[in-house]
């Protein structure tokens, strides 16, 4: 099994981080994983995205062009990537920034009011975690506990005090799916 993901949004929305958590979480589950960021001139213009591959086999291309799953944190990202998602794939999008999204036949689409939920938790910055929680709930690509463990590795030590907040956001997102 190979599962390919694109996480995309504005710079500063933390899409690189949720991609890293997916990859790290996959690794902690014993899988082969890659994480690849957009970089350099692509970053100018304010959008950022990363490719994540989680697989039982050695990973081939680290660059995902036909994802199984997409997390889109803003409108331009959804527009750019939604048509590339494989049939049967899943899209989680940030409904706080994307008012309406047309249904894509054959895809599971989940609107998540990430910013609102994050604000309710008292910190707008964890909107990305809400979306990630929902994505994990929808796709089961890694478990919540792997994502939580990954936080300890991926977040720099000086931010570890924020882990409980991040976990709360992941759980809120996950709860949307049930």
């Amino acid at each position, binding site marked *: 099994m190979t599962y390919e993901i694109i996480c995309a949004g504005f710079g500063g929305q933390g899409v690189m981080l949720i991609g890293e958590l997916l990859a790290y979480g996959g*690794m902690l589950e014993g899988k082969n994983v890659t994480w690849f960021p957009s970089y*350099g001139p692509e970053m100018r213009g304010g959008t950022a995205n990363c490719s994540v591959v989680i697989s039982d086999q050695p990973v*081939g*291309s680290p660059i995902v*062009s*036909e994802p199984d799953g997409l997390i889109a944190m803003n409108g331009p990202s959804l527009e750019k990537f939604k048509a590339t998602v494989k049939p049967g794939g899943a899209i989680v999008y940030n409904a706080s920034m994307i008012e309406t999204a047309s249904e894509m036949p054959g895809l599971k689409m989940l609107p998540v009011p990430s910013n609102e939920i994050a604000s309710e938790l008292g910190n707008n910055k964890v909107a990305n975690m809400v979306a990630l929680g929902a994505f994990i709930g929808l796709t089961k690509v890694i478990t919540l506990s792997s994502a939580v463990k990954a936080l300890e590795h991926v977040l720099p030590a000086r931010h570890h005090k924020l882990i409980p907040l991040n976990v709360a956001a992941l759980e809120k997102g996950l709860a949307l799916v049930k």
Partner: protein
Amino acid sequence: MERVMMKGNEALAEGAIRAGCRFFFGYPITPQNEIPEYMARRMPEVNGVFLQAESEVSAINMIYGAGGAGGRALTSSSSPGISLKQEGISYLAGAQVPCVIVNVARGGPGLGGLGPSQSDYFQATKGGGHGDYHLIVYAPGTAQEMVDLIGLAFDKAEEYRNPVMILSDAIMGQMMEPVVLPEMREVTADQPWATTGKKGRAKPNVINSLGIVGEDLERINIELQEKYKKIVDNEIRYEADGIDDADLIVVAYGTTSRVARSALNMLRAEGKKVGLLRPITLWPFPKPILSELAAEGKRFLVVEMSVGQLVEDVILAVNDRAKVDFFGKLNGSVPTVREVYNEINALLQKGGA
């Protein structure tokens, strides 16, 4: 063994430190900046030296000095910077100074772009500087190989007293993958030829590439060629995947080998007989295996991020005994899995295999 996620560039840097490298000289250039930036943080922790040189020309000559003095020395750069280093590299080869040079290649010619590219293959494998010389050139295909090959590179550089190049690219450098890091190695330099101060030696040690007197130059070149032959006989490395029953074999290294692997997995799932041959040493080139496979009647597709450089070595190895096709990208971007898949499919149909 604990796996940690690391960017290719950082995995390489940490791998170098664990292989005993204590001297890094470099100059900033995208997309390899993670290497010097990592070294700037890390070297002081291991009592090593990180020095930002004023240019690539200086950096490579610092390497000449440090390597010639017996230190495990590393420099890294990207294509335009590697071009500037060529004079120094020729001197390093001529004076037989061990060292490791990393090229995180980007698209050229000239200032080019920041995207990944494999268009420095000729420069890496066919000289680049002046004179009859060769570097040993490794092309890592995973972050783990970044770690493993940099260690091997230092060992081989010293074993053969030859500069070694790691030819990577922007994708390999920026991608994060799990790696298992080796233990820190103590390297006790025992290099009787190095300039360390005469210290009781009867004759001074001299690091030099001048061969102006009498038959000197010929003798130096004969010696070098004998060394290169030994390297060709002993140091070829490649990975073969599914080649035994394959009708068509993709030849690719580094980033494109990974894209090809994804495409080949899709094709094999459909029952197509396709395989991958991935050179790990670009010099010495895995000519014997290609020659053998050609004799068995296989056909080849070379996938490269260039107008076709590796393909020339494949054609030479195959020597008219098999058909060699080429698929390349020249815009500093990576071919997609779908593009490579379609290309192979088209070839299989055309070939009536």
